[in-house]
């Protein structure tokens, strides 16, 4: 239930992976929104790893959807990684999972992306 928000960014197989940990709420969401916006504006394929997020509220979901929209607008895309049942249920309940492709692991998301790239030729 505790944990400062931390965001670490790395690049793997041509994809930018932002690993988020800690609590995302109204007191930390601005930092997340700014970081994801910066990454989304680069027009890259972006994976947001939420597996170490201990709490996310509606403001956090809004930041994810906003970043996904920005990524689309810049010719990129945003994918989320989340295995926690509570967060997955919230993403489903709010319909966010219909706007942002979801995988349980980073490897799963990378495989999904590689497969969709292959499918496009």
């Amino acid at each position, binding site marked *: *239930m*505790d944990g400062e928000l931390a965001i670490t960014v790395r690049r793997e197989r041509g994809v930018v992976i932002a690993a988020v940990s800690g*609590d995302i*709420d*109204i*007191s930390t969401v601005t930092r997340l929104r700014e970081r994801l916006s910066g990454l989304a504006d680069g027009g890259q394929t972006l994976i947001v790893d939420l597996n170490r997020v201990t*709490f996310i*509220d*509606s*403001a956090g*979901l*809004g930041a994810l959807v906003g970043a996904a929209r920005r990524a689309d607008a810049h010719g990129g895309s945003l994918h989320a990684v989340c295995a926690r*049942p*509570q967060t997955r249920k*919230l993403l489903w*309940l*709010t319909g966010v999972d219909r706007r942002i492709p979801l995988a349980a692991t980073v490897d799963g998301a990378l495989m999904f992306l590689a497969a969709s790239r292959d499918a496009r030729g």
Partner: protein
Amino acid sequence: MVDDGPVKDEAGDGVPLLLDLMFGAVALRVLRAEVLVLARQAGLPDERAREVVLAVHELAANVICHGGGKGRLRVWQPAGALHCQVDDGDLIVSADPLASLDPFPEWLGHGLWIARRAANQMRALSGPCGTRVTLIFKLPAAQ
């Protein structure tokens, strides 16, 4: 436990308050931790307890973002349910809360939607003194 003076206040419903917390932006993590403990102690399984936490958090965040910036959370547990009540600002309860009922639909944001979905029952009252939302969560029957 709480002296609200001569005015009628349904908080507690005759049972002791488990929590009476004034909150502002910095204390929401504390609020979540407190609610998680109470929800677990009330007998809710972990997954449901975290839904309670999210719902109460969303109400409190709403108060901070769109209300007076600070509010009050009270939790009590009458038979078979956990009641979590969030007051916006310095709400003073009128003798008949329904007399000042004046819904503000625009107040309903995503957070409130989440709270309403999570709770078994949600009661909201708005009036000149502020807004009060009570979430009611059913507890599992005692074994």
